[in-house]
């Protein structure tokens, strides 16, 4: 295994170099994706890594283990993740949700046999989805440019900073000894990938261009998560709505879209005011 490592690093370095060369030729010109050339290269690299190693391993894992065991694995790591989800809910000022997350950890770690059963969901403590990137978004930090990170995949500039904190704070990365930590990290990654296998075929079926399909899905998904599932519909720049003079269409940035993408603070503020009103 150790002898293989330098070769892998070398090929990784080559992939990066190739990405750097390709970065010059950006294509479709989406304002959210200024480094599209680099991103497409990284995306291709990740796809290659996935089809060569990760996906085959995940497929074998899915075939080898019965569904209840895989559910147990999912729940086990989900229980550990609930800790940081609670912390992030607290950082976002959502105390009831944070206490619910704490309650989930307590219930699932005990009655749920070290988290392998998600009893808390059965008794009505809903599982949340939070991370540091979402917390920053909630605080009003704009998403910044879209970027595809090697191995980890799609992020935005904001979510990349979030990811660094997520990894640093992740209890699993602090497991000792290192061998146990590595096994845990690999098991979690493989299990997560296995859970996504059914989605693969649907994406292949749906996407005209897989790169931009995944990109736009990621951006929509993150926007929705920051609003905790209550994101308002994106502005419709369609025919029936605005009788805009033809000249405006030649302009660089479309005014309606800019309300959302260029000033990302305002929708968050709106969301805040809405929650404040609701209380």
């Amino acid at each position: 295994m150790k002898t293989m490592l330098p070769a892998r690093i070398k090929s990784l370095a080559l992939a990066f170099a190739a990405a750097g060369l390709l970065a010059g030729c950006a294509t479709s010109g989406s304002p959210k994706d200024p480094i599209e050339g680099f991103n497409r290269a990284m995306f291709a690299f990740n796809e290659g890594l996935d089809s060569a190693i990760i996906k085959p391993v995940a497929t074998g894992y899915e075939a080898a283990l019965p569904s209840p065991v895989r559910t147990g694995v999912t729940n086990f790591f989900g229980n550990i993740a609930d800790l940081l989800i609670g912390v992030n809910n607290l950082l976002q000022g959502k105390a009831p949700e944070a206490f619910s997350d704490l309650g989930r950890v307590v219930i699932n770690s005990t009655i749920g046999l070290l988290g392998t059963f998600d009893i808390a969901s059965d008794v009505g403590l809903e599982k949340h989805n939070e991370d540091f990137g979402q917390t920053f978004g909630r605080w009003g930090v704009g998403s910044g440019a879209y970027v595809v990170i090697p191995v980890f995949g799609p992020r935005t500039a904001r979510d990349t900073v979030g990811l660094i904190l997520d990894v640093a704070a992740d209890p699993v990365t602090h497991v000792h000894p290192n061998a146990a930590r590595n096994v845990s990290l690999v098991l979690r990654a493989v299990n997560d990938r296995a859970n996504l296998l059914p989605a693969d075929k649907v994406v292949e079926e749906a996407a005209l261009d897989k790169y931009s399909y995944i990109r736009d899905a990621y951006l929509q998904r993150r926007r929705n998560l920051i609003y905790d599932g209550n994101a308002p519909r994106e502005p419709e720049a369609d025919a029936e709505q605005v009788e805009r003079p033809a000249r405006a269409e030649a302009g660089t940035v479309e005014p309606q879209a800019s309300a959302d993408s260029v000033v990302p603070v305002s929708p968050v503020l709106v969301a805040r005011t809405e929650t404040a009103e609701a209380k």
Partner: protein
Amino acid sequence: MKFLFAFFSGLLISTTVLAQEVAPDVLVKTVTEEVLDIVRKDRDIQSGNTKKAIDLVETKVLPNFNFTRMTQLAMARDWRQASPAQQKTLTDEFHALLVRTYAKALTEYKNQTVHYKPFALKAGETDVRVRTEIKQAGAGKNIELDYWLEKSPAGWKVYDIEVGGISIVTNYRESFAAEVRNSGIDGLIKLLQTKNKSGDAASVKK
């Protein structure tokens, strides 16, 4: 004769009732349960027979969709650039693409159940979101699946579906716009046709 009259007027009343009375949440629930019921019993669909799944979607689901509106939403500003003939072709091709995707998703069905979230129709509302959640039987997280419906003279029609916050319609906006920028409306039509043909070929293979 009297019987026939009664029969036809009965038919007339029931279709009018269907068109006007079915609330959006009831519509979503009825259609979902009907489709899932068929999928649960159909081993062909479960083992990946996309052709059969497409037929199911075409007959049961599609009459409740407004594809012109969906295509218009995905095309955004470029919609008005398209001639009526191009709009028609675009709608047909986008329709085919979404149907195949939907059908593919059905063949991946494995014992999930659907939870319908509380819904209340406010008086005078013509544009609503019906929220559901897919509960996974085994591993995996629950998936929010929301339907956006619009009231029309022919009853409520779905014009968008959001999966975990991702609109399956507006997700095409950027790629459609990029294609139109690079090779015009006809270029986009061609791209959709090629994609649909390759998809058809793939589903025949299976």
